[in-house]
């Protein structure tokens, strides 16, 4: 059987599909058949290139030619020129916007630089249950470099120079944190890895632990050397059985080869790691709460100072970093701080991993340099909004973050710019919402989460968030007043101002940011009792169009509360006082006579 010479890759992603990629594909097949090229070329549908703005995309292998904005009319030309004559169709080539020149080989396209994988460098490449694969990709070289060539202070300086900031949400400079912990004297210190990823809709840390557990172990050892600790603890959610398994395997293998334990790499440095399990409490992502939980207590935060660097686990100096932060560390030593700090922006260095989810085509795990805009992430990597719907908002930072809108799409992703925009980096959840999402309901959803996850220690979070949720609930049920909106604002501000821990202080952010950005929607809910997204069912009114209804009685027979009346063969009516807005009638009607008003 002859080998296929050319593969014609057509994007079958939703975005390109909307711009007729299916037509293009069948056109290609047609032309190939017509010209008898079936043994030379083959059309292959692919997933989204994440480049939908330039779609539909057609890529030709083996020469990596990347054609953009291809139309069915272009197909014949591509076949004739490229497949038959071997000449590229220049006018369809991707144009580098910066240099304004055509790029022939897509490997040189800027587009592939949108994502740089540092923390995720090994995820999806190596077998996480085989330490040798990690070693083959420079694994544990950073450790050997630090142990063999650097003093703890020098290593801390390197981390400081790299500009790495905590990836768990707060963005505190990691090197500085290590330096604090290194300065306190104690007979025992601890390195703690925060793997209690509780942000709903975020799974970066889990992916790193499942895909590259050794990178975290190696980083913890480096940190231990820097701050003078010989013990490491990983606080991980019990809900992550696979990550726990892979970590256990990794720890076992590292011990077996002597990369954990006594006298590591013959340098006299001792370090070992143990696991501690979380038990389902979001608040334990806060470092003081996490420490209390590791000590076997209720995971309640305590007032800082004292910081863990001074008095942490078992009252000993402890350094807490999250998984993604640690995963960056080996690279910083392997490539140098000066390499690392060239990535990103002035105040936010390196990359950030996001769990891209929601109403977006390419749900997934992405890693982009700091400073990438939300637009690039959503439209170029995420492939745009699912089902061709209209973008409405993107939520970052989970329950501590906020909803950003159209006007924020060109905001570069950095710790400080996101805060300025009313959200925050958070741990890396990024949820995209479309016109079908009601922003009041979204705020309510997050508050419900906060209410459920509040530890209950401080008044503003324990009672304040409950009241916020109640007010939001009232609004979504159609009973809100303008006064309620004032209360929402004041209460949110007070909670932000007075709550005990970082989580409490940021818990009103989903409310404040939606009030800021979607004020009209709130006002609509309370004044005209309308939910434009059609989510708040109690505000909906199901009505039967008498012009369309033929009186088949199907709706009346299916209504669970007998709210529909009418003679057979004449238009029916819905009694709004009885209707529970379940929507069954609308589903059942075969004539589309029932609509929501």
């Amino acid at each position, binding site marked *: 059987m002859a080998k296929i010479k050319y593969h014609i890759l057509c994007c079958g992603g939703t975005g390109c599909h909307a711009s007729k990629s299916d037509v293009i594909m069948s056109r290609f097949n047609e032309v190939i058949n017509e010209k008898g090229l079936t043994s030379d070329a083959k059309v292959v549908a692919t997933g989204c*290139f994440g480049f939908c703005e330039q779609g539909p995309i057609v890529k030709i292998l083996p020469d990596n030619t990347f054609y953009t904005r291809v139309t069915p009319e272009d197909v014949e030309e591509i076949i004739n020129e490229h497949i038959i004559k071997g000449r590229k169709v220049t006018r369809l080539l991707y144009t580098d916007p910066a240099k304004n020149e055509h790029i022939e080989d897509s490997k040189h396209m800027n587009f592939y630089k949108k994502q*740089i*994988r540092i923390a995720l460098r090994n995820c*999806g490449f190596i077998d996480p249950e085989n330490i*040798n694969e990690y070693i*083959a990709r420079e694994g*544990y070289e950073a450790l050997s470099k630090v142990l063999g060539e650097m003093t703890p202070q020098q290593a801390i300086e390197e981390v400081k120079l790299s500009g790495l900031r905590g990836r768990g949400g707060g963005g505190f400079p990691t090197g500085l944190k290590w330096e604090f912990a290194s300065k306190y004297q104690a007979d025992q210190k601890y390195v703690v890895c925060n793997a209690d990823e509780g942000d709903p809709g975020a799974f970066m840390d889990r992916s790193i632990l499942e895909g590259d557990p050794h990178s975290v172990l190696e980083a913890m050892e480096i940190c231990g050397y820097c701050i003078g600790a010989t013990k490491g603890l990983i606080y991980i959610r019990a809900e992550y059985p696979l990550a726990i398994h892979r970590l256990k395997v990794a720890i076992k293998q590292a011990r077996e080869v002597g990369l954990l334990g006594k006298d590591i790499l013959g340098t006299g440095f001792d370090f070992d790691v143990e696991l501690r399990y979380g038990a389902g409490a979001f608040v334990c992502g806060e470092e003081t709460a996490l420490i209390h939980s590791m000590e076997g207590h209720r995971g309640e935060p305590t007032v800082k100072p004292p910081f863990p660097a001074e008095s942490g686990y078992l009252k000993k100096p402890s350094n807490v970093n999250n998984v993604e932060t640690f995963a960056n560390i080996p690279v910083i030593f392997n490539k140098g701080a000066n390499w690392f700090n060239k990535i990103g922006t002035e105040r936010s260095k390196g990359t950030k991993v996001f769990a891209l989810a929601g109403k977006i085509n390419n749900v*997934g795990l992405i890693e982009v340099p700091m400073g990438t805009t939300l637009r690039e992430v959503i439209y170029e990597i995420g492939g745009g909004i699912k089902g061709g719907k209209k973008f409405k908002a993107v939520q970052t930072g989970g329950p501590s973050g906020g909803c950003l809108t159209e006007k924020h799409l060109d905001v570069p992703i950095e710790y400080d710019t996101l805060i300025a925009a009313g959200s925050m980096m958070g741990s890396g959840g990024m949820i995209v919402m479309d016109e079908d999402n009601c922003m009041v309901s979204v705020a309510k959803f997050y508050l419900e989460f906060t209410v459920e996850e509040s530890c209950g220690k401080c008044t503003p979070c324990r009672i304040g968030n409950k009241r916020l949720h109640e007010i939001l609930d009232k609004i979504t049920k159609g009973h809100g007043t303008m006064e309620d909106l004032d209360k929402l604002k004041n209460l949110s501000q007070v909670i932000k101002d007075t709550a005990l821990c970082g989580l409490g202080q940021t818990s009103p952010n989903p409310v404040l940011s939606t009030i800021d950005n979607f004020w009209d929607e709130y006002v609509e809910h309370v004044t005209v009792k309308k939910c434009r997204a059609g989510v708040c069912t109690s505000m909906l009114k199901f009505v039967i169009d008498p012009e369309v209804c033929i009186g088949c009685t199907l709706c009346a027979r299916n209504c669970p509360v007998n709210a529909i009346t009418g003679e057979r063969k004449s238009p029916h009516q819905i009694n709004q006082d009885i209707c529970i807005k379940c929507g069954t009638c609308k589903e059942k009607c075969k004539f589309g006579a029932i609509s929501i008003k």
Partner: protein
Amino acid sequence: MAKIKSLADLKNLRDNMKSGIDLRERGDHPDALPQVKVGMATSGIASGAKEIMNFMIDELDKRGIPAVVTQTGDMGYCYAEPTIEVKLPGQDPVVFGYVNQAKADEIIEKYIKNGELVDGILPVNFRSVNE
């Protein structure tokens, strides 16, 4: 496993490994074999990656195709799981998404055997720092 006692040990091991990740057991020229990696993070497994991995191992064996099948972590394309990456000798790796048994069968028959691509390719849209 042998202890790694020094930096030199570590470098030796790395160099040995680098020539073919985890393929040492398979003979002298692992690069000459097709390599299949299955994304086996929680979400991958949840969408059936384990079954696909077993299928690939069994079928390649049955059909007498020498190849190496390993697991790996999250490739990032959560929307298209299960995902597998196939690297044919001397070629760039190709990632396939939405892999079910029929697709896996097609991949073996068409791509692994004949180098003929099949629908469901996921374009790689990132660079890794290790590359």
